[in-house]
């Protein structure tokens, strides 16, 4: 009896697996590239609903994607963790992810390929969209003072703690003495205010929120890491890039045009942000917009890879030549 029961469990489990596998293969065939009436290719883009992806919305509104015969449908995921599997499994054709996460994926053998630049640091100290901030009455004056302090980052072992360590190092401190804790960006202002953390690495709109509370920027971690750091990029799966080189080319062209346009029209960027986020107007007016260069900054990515390696983020050295086309 006992034996039968166990066998049955195994059989059921196998059937479940088979059923899910069958669903998987069935679902990706019809939707990888659906062509609409006017010959437009509909693309699903996995994004995070933040300031950084404003150029896509702006480009869509301005018709830059339509010119290329593309129509975008933004699919908002909570974080990069949901976007990479979504792209690799063919649920999204393109995705948005930070540079370090892409390197981690590449080093693990996940078949991802960068397609076009996403977002970059402004390169200006104290005037970047990402920053290390402290409370208004904090005794911390500069990055070196973070030694022995509790610093919040949104994801441990990723771009934000690696770059904060670099800020500490450049300021003459010992980055191994900083205690990092994981916290969502939107919870950081409250945690700072209550003294649960000593400092936080924030990006917009949290940066503006903290500043409005009287908080101070003590370091611009992206700027410290590299002049004009490439923070995030749009990517696809290697399979999609191989099978649809024309779509990839068109998406790249339209996105580059959108990035350039966004750089030149900050007011339109702020307007479009209010359509897909709920950032209050008073905060939105004070948000520091990132830079949107059309091309990524390769030396900055090399630096990021080196820092990640130093911090033990990768199982093996990421192959940037394979990741970037």
């Amino acid at each position: 009896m006992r034996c039968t029961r166990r066998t049955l469990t195994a059989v059921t489990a196998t059937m479940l697996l088979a059923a899910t596998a069958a669903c998987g293969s069935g679902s990706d065939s019809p939707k990888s590239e659906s062509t609409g009436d006017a010959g437009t290719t509909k693309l699903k883009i996995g994004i995070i609903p933040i300031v950084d992806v404003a150029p896509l919305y702006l480009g869509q509104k301005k018709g830059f994607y339509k010119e290329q015969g593309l129509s975008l449908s933004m699919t908002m995921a909570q974080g990069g963790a949901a976007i990479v599997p979504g792209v690799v499994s063919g649920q999204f054709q393109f995705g948005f992810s930070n540079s370090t996460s892409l390197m981690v994926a590449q080093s693990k053998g996940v078949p991802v390929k960068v397609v076009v630049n996403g977002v970059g640091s402004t390169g200006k100290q104290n005037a970047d969209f990402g920053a290390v901030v402290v409370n208004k009455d904090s005794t911390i004056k500069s990055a070196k003072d973070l030694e022995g302090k509790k610093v919040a980052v949104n994801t441990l072992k990723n771009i934000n703690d690696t770059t904060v360590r670099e800020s500490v190092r450049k300021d003459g401190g010992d980055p191994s003495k900083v205690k990092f804790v994981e916290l969502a960006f939107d919870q950081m202002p409250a945690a700072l205010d209550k003294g649960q953390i000593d400092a936080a690495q924030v990006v917009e709109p949290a940066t503006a929120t903290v500043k409005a509370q009287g908080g101070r920027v003590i370091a611009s971690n992206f700027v410290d890491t590299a002049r004009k750091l490439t923070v995030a990029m749009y990517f696809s799966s290697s399979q999609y890039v191989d099978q649809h080189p024309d779509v990839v080319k068109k998406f790249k062209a339209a996105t580059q045009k959108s990035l350039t346009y966004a750089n030149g029209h900050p007011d339109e960027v702020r307007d479009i942000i209010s359509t897909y986020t709920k950032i209050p107007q008073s905060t939105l007016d004070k948000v520091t917009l990132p830079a949107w260069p059309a091309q990524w900054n390769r030396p900055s990515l090399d630096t990021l890879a080196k820092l990640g390696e130093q911090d033990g983020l990768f199982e093996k050295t990421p192959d940037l030549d394979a990741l970037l086309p």
Partner: protein
Amino acid sequence: MIAAVIPAVPGLLGLLVCAALWEAVPRLGLVDPDFLPPFTTTLNALRGELADAAFWTALGDTLTGWALGLALATAGGILAGLVIATVPHLRELTASTVEFLRPIPSVALIPLAILLYGTELRSVLLLVVYAAFWQVLVQVLYGVQDVDPVADDTARAFGLGPWARVRHVVWPTALPYVMTGVRLAAAVALILAITVELVIGAPGLGHRINVAQSSQAVPDMYALILVAGCLGVLINTGARFVERRALSWHQSVRAEGPA
């Protein structure tokens, strides 16, 4: 009519106290109003939400995922439950499998859902159905177990076939259990629908909460959470109403309150 209103009074009183506390805590400076806006500020934000067409779309998406998921889970749970409970030996054979699969938290399947369906409605359905199915199934199993053996034997003696026995003996006994299962499943389905939207970004109320959260729009976020809470209350009240109607003939309901 009055009898129906009176039991609601203590509940309303509790809500009022809760609202008053919510209003007072930030106003007294116990917490920063930037992070926990007073109740009235939240209500204002709620008014803004109600005037926004996108809010209603989100509400519709959540309710669609909830209703479809609940319907699938209920149908599947009842069918599987009746088959397992009435076919000889099937119950012993499946017991360990059910006990193995049932405690797996539905949210742990989120990565699987993303892999299979991305952020579509089907992702929500997968997790909602998974969580709600067990609630119904287990109740159906209990219900069938509760069938009076004498009644069952009598039915057999009168030559009733398996289908007729299910229809006339098993089903009336199991129905109160089934209704309990459905009521529990209705609440679980709502929780799961909103959680999936929140975590993987499928369209709906949960997703809207997430956008408000990452936008630092704190009053909007609490307003939406308030909506989710009210939805839960409504769904539970609705489920109880349906339960009472479906079981109006049953002693457990007939004994309840003045008829």
